[in-house]
């Protein structure tokens, strides 16, 4: 992960969040990605979302695998611990970390190669476990660091920079997550910060596994004519399903929605997601309908974006809820409550005499 120190200069007039911190406090090292990379916009959206949520930086844990996308965890919230795992294995690190301390917020950044090829198994099982984390895929359909091979999300007919045409069907993380029972499934576009920031806020506050698949064009290897993951193609074929606005617990409702136009869903901590339908008769709490809508748009060569599915009761099947672990993090339990001592040992060994 390339690291260039960014000077921390703050202007007194910069806006502050509830903790009295400016956006600068949520930034990280300078990005070393290509100029214009979609991933940098995603990073900016994460900074914005964390600032708006007024997260204590040390209470965020940033995890990633290997690849361009996975580098970006160094580029936001420098006051948070980061873990750059091995290729495709970030979900297992996140699972262990989350098991040890359920109180922190976990954000995992991955790419389409890291998630859909080498890491497909771990991605699926993190969803099955309904791990309480926000999992973001910066999806560009291409392997950047190894110079332009197709990834498993490349669409049939999509053309590589050197002219090769992809003939294998893509794996769509949104459909996969819906199938596997994910409780929060969204798709965004790195070029639409207005849509993305509230999705990240809601995803961080959602209890359980939250997926945001973000179309994030690779300017160097996959932004040409014939690519279905270029800026131009994505802008053209982005079909918003639902616009989600995130409302923190304490915040008053400032926007008035016309009756029938918006729907409010409370998250476990009292914050709310306000959903505004962009498409007719779209129900983001119906898993089957959501899947059908994604497929229908896909058949038309379009990307359905926004908060595609949300299970408001998703937290009940969350990893710790199923495991029955106490609210107190496992890494903070007093040793006396873990070790049965010499008397306990004597009792245990009774059956081995």
């Amino acid at each position, binding site marked *: 992960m390339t690291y260039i120190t960014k000077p921390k200069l703050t202007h007194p007039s910069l806006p502050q969040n509830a903790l009295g911190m400016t956006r600068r406090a949520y930034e990280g090292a300078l990005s070393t990605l290509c100029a214009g990379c979609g991933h940098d916009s995603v990073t900016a959206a994460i900074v914005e979302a964390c600032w708006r949520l007024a997260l*204590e930086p040390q209470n965020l844990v940033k995890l990633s695998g290997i690849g361009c996308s996975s580098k970006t965890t160094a580029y936001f919230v420098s*006051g948070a611990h980061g873990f750059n795992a091995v290729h495709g294995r970030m979900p297992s690190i996140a699972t262990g970390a989350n098991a040890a*301390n359920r109180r922190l917020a976990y954000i995992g950044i991955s790419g389409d190669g890291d998630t859909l090829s080498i890491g497909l198994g771990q991605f699926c099982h993190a969803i099955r476990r309904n791990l309480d984390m926000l999992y973001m895929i910066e999806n560009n359909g291409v392997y950047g660091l190894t110079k332009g091979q197709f990834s498993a999300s490349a669409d049939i007919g999509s053309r590589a920079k050197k002219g090769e045409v992809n003939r294998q069907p893509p794996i769509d993380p949104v459909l996969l997550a819906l199938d596997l029972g994910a409780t929060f499934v969204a798709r965004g576009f790195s070029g639409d910060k207005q849509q993305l920031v509230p999705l990240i806020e809601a995803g961080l506050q959602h209890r359980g596994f939250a997926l945001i698949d973000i179309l994030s064009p690779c300017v160097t290897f996959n932004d040409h004519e014939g690519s279905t993951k270029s800026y131009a193609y994505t802008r053209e074929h982005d079909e918003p399903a639902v616009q989600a606005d995130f409302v923190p617990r304490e915040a008053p409702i400032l926007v008035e929605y016309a009756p029938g136009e918006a729907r409010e869903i409370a998250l476990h901590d009292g914050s709310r997601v306000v959903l505004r339908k962009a498409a007719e008769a779209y129900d983001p709490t119906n898993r089957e309908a959501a899947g059908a809508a994604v497929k229908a748009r896909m058949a038309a060569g379009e990307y359905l974006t926004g908060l595609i599915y949300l299970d408001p009761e998703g937290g009940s099947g969350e990893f710790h809820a199923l495991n029955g672990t106490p609210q107190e993090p496992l890494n903070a339990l007093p040793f006396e409550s*873990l070790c049965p001592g010499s008397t306990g040992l004597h009792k245990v060994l009774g*059956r081995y005499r």
Partner: protein
Amino acid sequence: MAACTPSRINDFTLKIATVNGTGSASANTLLMKAIFRSGVPVMGKNFFPSNIQGLPTWYEIRVSRDGHLARSGSIELMVALNPETYARDVREVAPGGYLLYDSTWPRPVLLARTDITVLGVPLAQLCNENFTGVRTRILMKNICYAGALAALLNLDLERMRELLTETYARKPQLIESNMKALRLGFEYARAHFACPLPLALEPMDRTAGHIMIDGNTAAALGCVFAGATVAAWYPITPSTSLMDAFKGFCERLRVDPQSGEKRFAFIQAEDELAAIGMVLGASWNGARAFTATSGPGISLMGEFLGLAYYAEVPAVLFDIQRVGPSTGMPTRTQQGDLLACAYASHGDTRQVCLYPANPAECFTLAVEAFDLAERLQTPVLVVSDLDIGMNDWMCPQFQWDDAYRPDRGKMLGRAEIEKLDKFHRYLDPQGDGIPWRTLPGVHPKGAYFTRGSGHTQFGTYTEDSHDYQVVLDRLMKKWQTAKSRVPPALIEGPGSEVGLVSIGSSDSAVHEALALLAADGITLDYLRVRAFPFGEEVERFLAEHRLVFVVEQNRDAQLRSLLTLETGVEKAKLRSLLHYSGLPVSSHFIVEGVQAELRGASGAARPSAVGV
């Protein structure tokens, strides 16, 4: 092989050949436990197939008044109940020994040897006449042979009732049916043979203060006592029982009686790669976490183990070795992962390993592994094997010091971080090669980036040669520090010029072999390696002896390789005694190997001495 004479009181081996899945395990455990409760030292080894039902299985019970816990190498009494293996089972009985079989049907093959005594008990007929139901009859046939053996070996039936009462405390109706089957066999044997045999048992008092326990259960108990809270694993023989035991102990000891809350997380991973990843994530986040696996899992975990070494993440891993290469023989034992564990992962990687020799050490070294992992900020691999892990061993009752508290190593708390101007993860302020670490969620100033890519001592990414080397060299300094922190090798002996080195479960056979060799006029000094890296004492022992035997259970002399790689020892003076049949090494094998080397004609072929 020694003939069976009256001097074999409390000193013989009996082997029971049955078919997997027929329920013989409970009869065998009953027999062994009854002998143990008579105060007579006993060893039980289960040679079972990788199969649920139908393949041959054997159980070897060695009774040893002198307390030897290894296989002797000979069988004095065979209980042959599996027609498929009759031929080899008959062959295996020592001259003058005994063979018991089910005489419901004629078995001429069993009568081929004239130098052993064949005892026929119509087990099936007795059970068919006295029990109903196919399954019950099959199960009771096992208890029935246990009854016949009780008569032949002079075992107290009341002691067996006592054990049945404990086992079936919740199913009392089973006690009477089992007692009935026991008596059927017992009375038949008394009526038809001269009981007891010369191989019989006499009560002693040599098992007081001891327990019978398997190494996986003991290791799991060690994890509970060390305060481990996160356990992640993927099922693989023969490590699964370790995780099962941990879960069982936690459900008894770590569930809040009021709220039902569990003070542990038990995660069945999707594969071994995920299992070790979860352990690293949890340890990195401040919980004591561990996994258990076997050889194939070690191969799969390699990449993450390299990350943990380089990024300095504590982790505890139990490798319950089985027979390789590849899938190998999953239910047989071997010490074949020594090299794979020591240098697990690509690049310049080296891993701290601990080598328990018995369940008692599985317990103590499990606790020590957690302390070392945190103290050294690196994975610690506890390298056990199937023989230790899945067989019941007699060991001194475990002790626990209530003053024990986990050693979290160099970990900075909130107040300490607050005082710092800036925190740098990979500096070496105390010169021992061990840096300070911080946990997530404590203080924003303590935040750092954990990565497997090149990093500077300040924790930042680098591709600079010098900055990279500073960290690599500091890791080597930490490795030097580890040499004095890991448990030292155990050394004993009269001060001979010839030494013997062994490791792990080979220890009990070595101990008996040393006694037998001493009685034969050959005295050896003995060193048992208990950890990697090797301490100074290993180097010294090798230097001080003219010739050193290296006893280990693999084909490729992996311990010998490690010794030649990591010490200054002259390769030519190391003589390998290699046992890799999949069965635990016997004392006879070692005695014969040493005798052949020391007494063999010079220049003669030495099949057991392998040059690498």
